């Protein structure tokens, strides 16, 4: 870990972002799965409904067709088993009708025999229709074309809805007709009993769209959506399922099948919402469950991430505090290193002052102290004391300017000037270590934006390290500044012992030190690294064991105050 991470203004996670992320990560797949399942379930349900309707309608259509063909069969049996002469007998017909009614529960209303001219020659039934003339009736002309005929429902001569079953009897090259009336109600019940849900009803229409049964719910037979099927070719024994909206905008599902050899159509209709009621309920429950879940997750993640965010913020604050302390500790350590040199540096002028004062005392202690020679000597001594006092003052000021608490304020700084200042600060140390300082400073160096105390610390640390890298025979330190590729480069090259390649990668790690216990904190370079990174710069070390080490720092040029890299960085971190 490098110390710069302690300094970096880490983007603090926002609760809202966290919640959104969790919701997205958890919600999208669930929504997708839910959608797919609902869709699949819907398809399955639709298939089920369709199958159900198909089966229902087919069953009923068969029943109805069977009913019709059975009735037709009855009449055909009757027609073929007796010659016209017998059938023309009123009493015979009445007897037969009685048997039919007995067998089929009043399905047959009446029986009649019609001659080829359309006049009813014999009749048995509740109406007085003997000798009725059917020459003009539709069914009469229809029957001339085919052997059998089942009419549409019509009111006819008797004034109540009914339909007739007709069988042609060829006799003496002429077509006689046996006609039976089927009770409308008995037939109607077959259809109107088909009921599903609250809106599912069945009815029969002919190809003209006229109702053949009486639906339980009023159906607009002339303009309803079922009229779409009037001209549709319908396969026998197949059911067509279709959805169409009616005049009121309600979606209706239709199950349609042909009847009576395609002349009639059995229509089952139901409102889609009714047919899919269970499906809609399921969908509703699913949606409600999803909303409920989303609310729970949102609430949960909100509180979780709020707690997390607060915790992280706390940690960041603690870390910042700690890294500040680390920097401060490192600074104090470098001051400590300086102190030894400085103490000696102060001690020398102090010693001189003490000796000069002692010398003056010596002179004053003479029996005749006021000789011109003595006075000159005293004058010289006091001047010397003053000079040495000035020296002390200079040293203490230099130290104080460094020892002040770290001021992270970013200011415009002349790097060359700072290098010179730092060289004078370590001057004593280098002199006693027999180290020669050389500088090669680019006079046209543009200013940089940095915290003066922090940059001082970097320079001091590097210079101290360079001096410490020398053995007692000394060496030299070469400091150069230059502008290169828009970056300000500072190189500090020493001719010290160098760093082993294995250690070179670790030198910026905190607490890494090769100095004996108690002499190095191992923080110096890691702090330098942190400070330089914070300034948007870079620090690198190259070293050859036994030849020396070169530290290269590159710093961004100062831009105008607002666009400054560092002020940007700071304002960004504060606004987080």
């Amino acid at each position: 870990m490098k110390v710069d991470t302690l300094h970096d203004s880490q983007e603090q996670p926002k609760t809202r972002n966290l919640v959104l992320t969790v919701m997205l990560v958890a919600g999208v797949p669930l929504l997708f799965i839910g959608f797919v399942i609902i869709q699949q379930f819907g398809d399955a349900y639709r298939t089920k409904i369709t199958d159900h309707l198909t089966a229902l309608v087919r069953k009923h259509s068969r029943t109805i067709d069977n009913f019709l063909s059975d009735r037709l069969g009855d009449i055909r049996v009757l027609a073929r088993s007796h010659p016209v002469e017998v059938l023309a007998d009123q009493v015979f017909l009445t007897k037969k009708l009685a048997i039919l009614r007995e067998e089929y529960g009043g399905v047959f209303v009446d029986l009649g025999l019609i001659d080829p001219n359309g006049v009813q020659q014999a009749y048995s039934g509740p109406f007085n229709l003997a000798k009725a003339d059917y020459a003009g009736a539709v069914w009469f002309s229809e029957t001339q074309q085919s052997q059998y005929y089942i009419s549409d429902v019509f009111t006819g001569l008797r004034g109540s809805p009914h339909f007739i079953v007709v069988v042609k009897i060829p006799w003496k090259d002429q077509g006689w007709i046996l006609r039976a009336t089927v009770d409308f109600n008995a037939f109607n019940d077959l259809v109107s009993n088909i009921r599903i849900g609250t809106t599912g009803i069945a009815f029969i229409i002919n190809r003209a769209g006229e109702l053949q049964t009486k639906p339980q719910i009023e159906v607009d037979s002339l303009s309803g959506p079922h009229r779409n099927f009037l001209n549709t070719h319908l396969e026998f024994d197949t059911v067509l399922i279709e959805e169409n909206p009616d005049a009121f905008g309600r979606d209706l599902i239709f199950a349609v099948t042909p009847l009576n050899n395609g002349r009639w159509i059995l229509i089952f209709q139901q409102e889609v919402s009714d047919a899919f009621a269970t499906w809609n309920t399921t969908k509703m429950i699913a949606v409600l469950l999803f909303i409920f879940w989303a609310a729970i997750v949102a609430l949960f993640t909100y509180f979780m991430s709020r707690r997390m965010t607060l915790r992280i913020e706390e940690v960041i604050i603690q870390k910042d505090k700690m890294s500040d302390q680390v920097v401060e500790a490192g600074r104090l350590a470098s001051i400590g290193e300086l102190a030894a040199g400085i103490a000696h540096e102060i001690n020398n002028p102090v010693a001189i002052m003490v000796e000069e004062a002692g010398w003056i005392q010596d002179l004053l202690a003479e029996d005749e102290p006021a000789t011109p020679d003595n006075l000159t000597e005293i004058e010289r001594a006091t001047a010397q004391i003053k000079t040495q006092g000035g020296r002390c003052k200079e040293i203490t000021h230099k130290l104080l300017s460094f020892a002040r608490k770290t001021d992270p304020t970013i200011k415009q700084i002349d790097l060359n000037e700072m290098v010179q200042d730092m060289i004078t600060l370590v001057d004593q140390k280098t002199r006693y270590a027999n180290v020669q300082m050389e500088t090669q400073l680019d006079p046209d160096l543009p200013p940089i934006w940095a915290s003066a105390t922090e940059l001082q610390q970097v320079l001091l640390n590097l210079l101290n390290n360079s001096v410490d890298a020398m053995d007692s025979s000394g060496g030299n330190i070469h400091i150069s500044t230059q502008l290169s590729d828009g970056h300000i480069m500072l190189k500090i090259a020493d001719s010290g012992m160098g760093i082993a390649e294995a250690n070179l990668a670790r030198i910026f790690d905190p607490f890494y030190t090769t100095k004996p216990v108690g002499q190095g904190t191992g923080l110096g370079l890691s702090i330098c690294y942190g400070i330089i990174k914070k300034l948007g710069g870079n620090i690198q070390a190259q070293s050859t064991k036994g030849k020396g080490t070169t530290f290269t720092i590159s710093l961004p040029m100062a831009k105008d105050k607002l666009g400054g890299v560092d002020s940007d960085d700071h304002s960004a971190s504060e606004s987080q």
Partner: protein
Amino acid sequence: MAYRSSTLVPPSVLLVDDEASFVETLSKRIAKRDLKVSTAFSGPEALEKLKSGGGASNFDVVILDVKMPGMDGLETLAAIKLKHPNVEVIMLTGHATVESAIEGMKAGAFDYLMKPCDIDLLLAKIDRAVVKKREHEEKILQAKAQMIVLKRGF
């Protein structure tokens, strides 16, 4: 301000420090107390003066600053003890270099003093160093005399 030495012959002192002002003033004060004083501003210069005898007589005591550029006090001490084992050395040290002074004592220095130092204390130490040196020389003389006597067979 007469210096009451415990020895009859006034001690001869060599003062070594890189601070010229300090050396000059302190040498004046020591000279005022009737000691013979020479000065040197670096280790090599001191060794040179010791070698050439520094004038009339050999030096009794070298007052040596620990911290000097170039050849430092400890190196100088080692060189002195190698070539002039009889010369006593008093180390002068700042606060931060007491450890070096102790090193020096181990390497044969007579004593050490912290700068800035009291002149009387310095003189007392010089005196004791000189006494020690003279006694030491006396013993050597006696031993030599005895050797001669033994050789002659008295």
